[in-house]
């Protein structure tokens, strides 16, 4: 049976005074629909449908666009529009407008809107619109990645199956590994760091799933790999190909979450032993990785925190170490974004992206995640129901317990 999926996204193209191109087919306001087909496999196809509304700005929007910088404009516009999840609004400003800095023709805001410099007619605008939907909404690759179990193997890129599967909830565990408590007395203010840095991001993501966070400190937990000593830099190095072997021995100590069924994301902070300090991770070219961290798709991330040697060799052990949670949380939050697949793809030139600030991700990034998860959920549901129906067709008198039957 052929499966057809249609993804409809409402788009609005709003023209500020002085930016209306000359070659509009009809006078403003008017509507337009664009449908493209994304082939997935022989039996499934996904159509994307962009319902575009072309209109001119209202008086309040004009007032909002009349500010000094693009960021303020974005903030003011956000208050005016009631952008529903998945929608996109494009404001076209005149070529001479001071909002966009020199050399930048598209500014992507924190919420669901973007500012585009006018010029070049309707065709150029439509190209810009296309580029913007590739960035802010879904693309063929992201949909194919979400349906990854239906796509034949050759077509997907290497990154396709790396993102976390969609689930009702996730558990995030921060673990501090201290293999040498005699030398290092490590203290981390994890509670404060979670409330301050992690919780705003999770609150933003709460539309996608439920999150629960906890943390633990594990002592005498060693990495499974012995690092090499490098004489030139007088430090210890972990090469890239030994990284996969690091996780397995540690995972035995991490413990499974017995009380819930959600997938667990582990973020480990490893403080190397006195005898193996300082420890750096090497990337493929042999240079030490600047953040000294790596992540494993669908599992979590590990960061190595080096402690400086004591000034005098007679310093009393154990050394008291207060972990710099800012540096650590930066890396962990970046890894969290990578695990969810919120990485920024290659941007076309002349694009400027607004940083999402304390919340960790922009509204449109959340939309991308929701698109991918929704498509994945629908695909899973249809597969499950189809296979259930086929099973019941083949085995007419299968015995099913009452509680199982009530769930179907």
């Amino acid at each position: 049976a052929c499966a057809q999926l249609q993804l409809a996204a409402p788009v609005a193209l709003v023209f500020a005074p002085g930016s209306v191109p000359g070659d509009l087919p009809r006078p403003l306001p008017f509507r337009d629909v664009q449908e493209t087909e994304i082939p997935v496999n022989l039996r499934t196809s996904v159509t994307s449908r962009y319902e575009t509304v072309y209109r001119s700005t209202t008086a309040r929007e004009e007032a909002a666009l009349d500010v000094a910088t693009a960021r303020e404009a974005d903030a003011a516009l956000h208050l005016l529009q009631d952008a529903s999840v998945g929608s996109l609004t494009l404001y076209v400003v005149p070529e001479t407008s001071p909002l966009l800095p020199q050399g930048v023709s598209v500014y992507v805001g924190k919420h669901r809107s973007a500012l585009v410099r006018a010029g070049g007619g309707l065709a150029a605008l439509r190209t810009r619109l296309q580029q913007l939907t590739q960035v802010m909404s879904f693309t063929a690759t992201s949909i194919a990645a979400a349906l990854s179990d239906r796509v034949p193997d050759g077509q997907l890129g290497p990154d396709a199956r790396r993102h976390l599967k969609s689930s009702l909830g996730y558990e995030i565990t921060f673990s501090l590994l201290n293999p040498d408590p005699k030398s290092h007395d490590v203290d981390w203010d994890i509670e404060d760091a979670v409330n301050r840095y992690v919780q705003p991001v999770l609150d933003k993501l709460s539309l996608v799933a439920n999150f629960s966070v906890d943390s633990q400190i594990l002592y005498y937990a060693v990495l499974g790999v012995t690092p090499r000593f490098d004489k030139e830099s007088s430090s210890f190095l972990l090469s890239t190909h030994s990284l996969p072997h690091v996780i397995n021995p540690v995972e035995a100590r991490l413990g499974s979450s017995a009380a819930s069924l959600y997938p667990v994301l582990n973020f480990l902070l490893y403080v190397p032993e006195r005898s193996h300090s300082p420890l750096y991770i090497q990337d493929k070219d042999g240079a030490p990785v600047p953040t000294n961290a790596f992540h494993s798709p669908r599992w979590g991330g590990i960061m190595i925190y080096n402690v400086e040697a004591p000034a005098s060799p007679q310093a009393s052990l154990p050394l008291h170490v207060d972990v710099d949670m800012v540096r650590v949380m930066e890396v962990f939050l970046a890894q969290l974004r990578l695990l969810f697949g919120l990485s920024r793809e290659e941007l076309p030139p002349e694009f400027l992206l607004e940083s999402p600030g304390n919340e960790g991700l922009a509204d449109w990034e959340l939309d991308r995640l929701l698109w991918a998860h929704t498509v994945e959920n629908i695909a899973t549901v249809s597969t499950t129901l189809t296979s259930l129906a086929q099973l019941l067709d083949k085995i007419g008198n299968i015995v099913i317990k009452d509680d199982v039957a009530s769930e179907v």
Partner: protein
Amino acid sequence: GGMAAALLLLLLLAAGPGPGRARRDVLREELLLSPLPAGDVAATFQFRTRWDADLQRGEVSHYRLFPKALGRLVAALGVRELHLALTQGFWRTQAWGQPPLQAPAGAELWVWFQPTVTDVDKAWKELSNILSGIFCASLNFIDSTNTVTPTASFKPLGLANGTDHHLLRYAVLPREVVCTENLTPWKKLLPCGSKAGLAVLLKAERLFHSSYHSQAVHIRPVCRDASCLAVSWELRQTLTVVFDSFASGQGKKDWSLFKMFSRTLTDACPLASQSKVYVDISPKSKEKELLEVTPPPTSVHEAVVQGDKRTYAVYDLLSPSLFNTSRSLNVQLKWQRPQDSSELPTPVLHAQRYVSGYGLQTGEISTLIYNTHPYRAFPVLLLETVPWYLRLYVHTLTIITKGKENKPSYIHYQPAQDRRRPHLLEMLIQLPANSITKVTIQFERALLKWTEYTPDPNHGFYVGSSVLSALVPSVIAMKDGDVEQSPLFTSLFPSSDGSSYFVRLYTEPLLVNLPTPDFSMPYNVICLTCTVVAVCYGSFYNLLTRTFHVEEPSRGGLAKRLANIIRKFRGVPPL
């Protein structure tokens, strides 16, 4: 690359490192070596983590010394107290004396839930399944057929607001075997693992080569300090092992840490605030000590434990003077004079249980309770859990002391329901001084359905140990010391007043044979039937279908004629 740069803008509120916060959890570890009368030695390890956080209220989710697996379990399922013990062997109270903390053979789990839990049975089932996963034990076999709700025994050992006994569940699995795969997850819960401190001695090949091995986990809420305004959570992991002088000691009665555990102590756990080894050197009679310990202890501690004044040699692993002379500590115990059998101490309270009767239809369970105190009488609470397939006749329950009938002052009996609930019998019996009390009850054995038999049904079916709880009067008054200062083995049970101490004893488990069908019969029947049918049918078919016809004798070929010539020479008749 660009991502990290973008996120650097994220965290503009860079706070400086806060001042060193007071740690909220404390670890104490302790090892008690007590020589037993027959030349054996008992070693009791205790690891106690006290966490000043309220696991019940609020989202406590940041763990340090308290293991995350147990903390999440307690918070998620609304557990107030949890006691799990896995034991191999039996503590012979008569020969070895009163145990500090005894557990029945097999697995025992008893849990008090919070009053906020609405469906206690569902929480109990989830809890036993999760614990079964954490400890690699078959606790998932705990279901309604071996769970009871005692009304008077097993009162909470920690802080308790009210005691509605419907929040208590008790189950025992006497058939459970304890081995290395249960010890490893138990060791994993310790903050230092088995890498430092007293836990380095816990090596499986020596621990299981012993007469008695019991490991337990106890979680309970305790008062944070003397004023008891706030609640802390206490996790105690205890491990008791008895080394036999013949099996492990090669017949000699001199013991050392190396002989017992094949390891010595090199340091204390860096996370522990206290790490001590206590050796019981109490003189058994008024003469000088029986036991000599080397190296010399850091201090000597005297305490009244279980009604006796005892002296302990203390080795404090955190004191710097201990490891001055040698890098490792190997405590050696030498007996100074041979043991006299007349010096065997008799414990004040001990019990025995056995099953009697003949045949596979009826039987009788008898429990003998001994009170050897010369002049004090005290009551004892007896709890018996009997599986449903031994049908007890309560009208045959008799309690006889010194030839006269003894009526219990409190009796609670819950009859069994076939395949759903076991028998529960709780009695408060007054034991007169210097007496033996015999409690007998008759039962009838049930015939089970053929799918309910265990794989080796002729081994028998286990009946779990009965539990005796009593406040035994002590000769010497005991001071109620501060929990934080006194050794851990004295603060296991809360003491209400100084004149008596709490004791919980377990009797032997019973092994009862049920009428077992002969499981080879289906095979025999099939063989016999098939043989009869084959012979019958075969003969009948032959009779009906066999035909006879005459065969011409052939003249024989060349070979036959040659053979006949040879036979004529030999003088044998021709073919």
